[in-house]
């Protein structure tokens, strides 16, 4: 009987339970910095991933004769990067690309003389921008070139030769031989950043035919440089005069 009472008592206590409430609370934002020693077993676990990563990042892709820097209105580096995007965009897109474009501000470092590594290209293009192909009319293409010629005071473009007078584009010629006609359409490869209006080119946000290609601009550069290096020769890229200031 006593046991039963105890049992009933317990049951009552449990059924009367109304859960818990927070009586006190406090918070801290803990810095994960050099003051905290690294856990050695975690370091050991990560080591194989890190070693292979370092090998990949340090792997030479191609050897260049001299250091390359971006420059306005044009430089060997500007041309090389734009040509890389033009070639790789066409491969990824599976259709012809008329023009490639990189925003000048997005090129964050030059390339050292000697072996160019994947790591170097991560410094040139640290952002994970994806390739976007916009189909522009000839009129929109001219508007596009004019906008960036004025806004960036530089045009990092492939597939097109441009004459600029006082920051305005006076003429543009496609290297694939197509004429730029106002109401014909042209494919333009660029970063999602630019296509989203990130360079201030708001008119791009409303372009109806937009293809998002799941392909990083940086990967385009890495693959193009790897191709360049396959012959095993030192290359000395030059600016080819595609931008003419009048």
């Amino acid at each position, binding site marked *: 009987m006593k046991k039963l009472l105890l049992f009933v008592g317990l049951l009552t206590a449990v059924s009367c339970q109304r859960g818990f*409430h*927070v009586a006190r609370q406090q*918070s801290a934002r803990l*810095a994960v*910095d050099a003051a905290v020693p690294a856990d050695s077993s975690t370091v050991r676990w990560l080591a194989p991933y890190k070693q292979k*990563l370092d090998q990949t990042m340090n792997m030479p892709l191609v050897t260049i004769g001299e250091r390359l820097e971006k420059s306005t209105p044009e430089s060997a580096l500007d041309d090389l990067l734009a040509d890389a995007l033009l070639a790789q965009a066409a491969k990824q897109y599976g259709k012809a690309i008329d023009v490639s474009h990189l925003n000048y501000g997005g090129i964050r470092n030059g390339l050292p003389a000697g072996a160019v590594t994947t790591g170097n290209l991560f410094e040139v293009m640290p952002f994970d921008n994806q390739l976007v192909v916009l189909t522009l009319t000839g009129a929109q293409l001219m508007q596009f070139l004019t906008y960036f010629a004025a806004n960036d005071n530089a045009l990092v473009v492939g597939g097109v030769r441009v004459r600029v007078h006082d920051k305005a584009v006076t003429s543009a010629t496609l290297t694939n031989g197509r004429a730029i006609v106002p109401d014909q359409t042209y494919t333009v490869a660029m970063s*999602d950043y630019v296509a989203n209006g990130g360079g201030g080119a708001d008119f791009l946000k409303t372009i109806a035919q937009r293809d998002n290609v799941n392909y990083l601009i940086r990967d385009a550069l890495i693959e193009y440089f790897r191709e360049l290096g396959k012959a095993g020769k030192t290359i000395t890229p030059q600016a080819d005069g595609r931008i003419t200031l009048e």
Partner: protein
Amino acid sequence: MDASHSNRRQFLKYLGATAVIAPALPQALLAATKAAPKATALTILHTNDVHSRLDPFPMDGSRNAGKGGVARRMTLLQQIRSEQKNTLLLDAGDIFQGTPYFNLYKGEPEMLAMNRLGYDAGTIGNHDFDGGIENMRDQFGKATFPLLVANYNFKNTVMDGRTKPWQVFKKDGIRVGVFGLGIQPKGLIPENLYKETRYLDPIDISTDMARRLRQEEKCDYVICLSHLGFKYPDATVSDQVLAAKSKDIDLIIGGHTHTFLDAPVTVNNANGKPMLINQVGFAGINLGRIDLTFEPGKAPVVGGTQVVPVG
């Protein structure tokens, strides 16, 4: 029995980045509370937007040089777990993308590191789609913890059935309900990455979810793991918007906006009751820590809700 359901929680004053606590209760009542039975401690630990930062930032003179890294986070976690029996380690999304680790390994070491560190749950950020939804399936499939997201309908995608909306964690009798919320993918994530993932309204979903956790699942504490973002200048749904419209959420652990909060922010919910939002930057530079002490039953009745705003 206890008319004052609304006073279930007490509200505390946060002083700067660390410590805190000044229960807004009269001293006499506080003394009475002290006499109350067994208290149970629970420590909530959290990260957001770690972005593949497995190693610390390189020592290149930049602002975050030398900060972060999973091996150091492990040390902190071990220290805390040696002192606290009941812990929950949560992540608010964007595990992937941001270092070459992701480009090379597609997210595997990030997931395996989270397993090693003992994460209890995570939610999905927009960058977790960056390798494509098939890659998300492959990498998230390596997780030994649940990925919680209540407002993504993955039907017709390879992620169908691979996430849960919520989970209840039991810690020394305390029931903690955790659910996850993802951000609107349209316009943010290329469609070919998220495919037929359907985004459901996070306010509607979380109202149902939190009520269910509170009432049907009898949770003592409800946490929303959110990748909506802390707040926006326009009416875009955010943790702030969600908090103000919520009724049953105690804590939102947020992400996406890489917001460095010195301490959790207190927001009054739809019933005028304060709840917390926290977010600790990005890249694993910080580990967020919230220590809760639970006592049995409902909070003592206090005349009127006293709210001490965050300083």
